[in-house]
């Protein structure tokens, strides 16, 4: 009986969090309108969310591209089609690795910081005191961070893919001796702007929305203790990773399943 009660309590807790999360999303979206009148607020957040994630994204993109160059070459050279390396590198980056790896890195680099910052604001009652002064924390604190996250994710993913393609070029053409002209020509012949690049951008927009939503909500929904903040930060990273990978499966099925 106690086990059954525990199960019920857990499920009600999950449902409650889900409901709070959606109400939170709604209130944040409503607060986005007045935010546009004060661009200073979200430009500042764009700096801490986007600019400061730049280094890890660029370095990871370069290395992922270089590894793809090596692995793709090793597989393709057996079939005598090493020229297709450009296609392999570009398609894997633009369709999958760009959006997904960027979202995972984003969760670790920016999402956890967002949760910890907002959670600590709540634990030290800064959010409540804002409400006391008739400052809406949704407009002042949450919406700018949310907007900056959604805006920076597609830009970061595009940078990741572009740097990755360059990394694949470095290894494929520079080290392994694939023909430079064939690398670019095969790539351009087989990567489609709408089917591949645009779908990748749509993916990263969706991941941006989900990753920032989870990060900001976990911060806002924190138990206002030191332990609570630490738990919320962990949850942000874990939940974002799971949500992004599951969503990626669904989006890939929708976008490329019919091809």
């Amino acid at each position, binding site marked *: 009986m106690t086990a059954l009660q525990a199960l019920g309590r857990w499920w009600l807790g999950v449902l409650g969090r889900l409901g709070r999360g959606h109400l939170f999303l709604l209130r944040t979206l409503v607060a986005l309108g007045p935010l546009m009148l004060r661009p*200073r607020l979200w*430009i*500042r957040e*764009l*700096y801490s969310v*986007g*600019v400061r994630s*730049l280094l890890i994204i660029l370095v990871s993109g370069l290395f992922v591209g270089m590894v793809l160059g090596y692995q793709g070459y090793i597989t393709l050279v057996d079939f005598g089609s090493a020229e297709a390396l450009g296609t392999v590198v*570009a398609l894997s980056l*633009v369709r999958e690795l760009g959006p997904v790896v960027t979202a995972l890195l984003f969760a670790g680099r920016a999402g956890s910081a967002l949760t910890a910052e907002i959670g600590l604001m709540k634990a030290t009652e800064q959010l409540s005191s804002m409400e006391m002064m008739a400052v809406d924390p949704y407009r002042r604190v949450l919406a700018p961070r949310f907007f900056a996250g959604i805006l*920076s994710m*597609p*830009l*970061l993913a*595009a*940078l990741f*893919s*572009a*740097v990755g*393609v360059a990394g694949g070029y470095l290894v494929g053409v520079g080290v392994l001796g694939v023909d430079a002209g064939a690398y*670019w020509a095969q*790539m*351009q*012949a087989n*990567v*489609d*702007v709408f089917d*591949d*690049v645009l779908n*990748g*951008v749509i993916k990263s927009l969706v991941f941006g929305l989900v990753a920032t939503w989870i990060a900001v909500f976990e911060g806002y929904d924190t138990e206002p203790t030191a332990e609570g903040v630490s738990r919320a930060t962990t949850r942000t990273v874990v939940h974002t990773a799971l949500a992004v990978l599951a969503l990626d499966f669904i989006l890939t099925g929708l976008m490329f399943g019919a091809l």
Partner: protein
Amino acid sequence: MTTRWIEITVGLFVALGIGALFVLALKVSNLSEYGGEEGYQVHAYFSNIGGLKERAPVTLAGVRVGRVSDIRYDPERFQARVTLTLSAQHDYLPKDTQASIYTAGLLGEQYVALEPGAEEAVLEDGDTLLFTQSAVVLEELIGRLMVNLTQD
């Protein structure tokens, strides 16, 4: 951290990101093939198009002059109707130009090769090519070869 510095780096970040999107669109993918130059369309009927796909190249002596813009089945002629979009600068093709479907390399992609005829009148928008040569299907070829071998 001054506001000026923050705004400069954010501007740089956004410019870099948008620049990367442009690189992906122009350098990595085939945006340059869309739109741009206007062309004219001619139709060609084939009894078998093999593995021809939309956006496959159309060549003239190996030089790319257009692309396949539409493929559909014509239920009245029981043939495949392939629409070729040729760029406007190649407006000198005779009416009796022949279209053939070839394969680039042994297993590569298929494309449409045009061979100019000898007539004075030139192709115009909406015309239909009179002479076509269908794709070579490997199985058919092997089948014919087997028949020839067993006859000997």
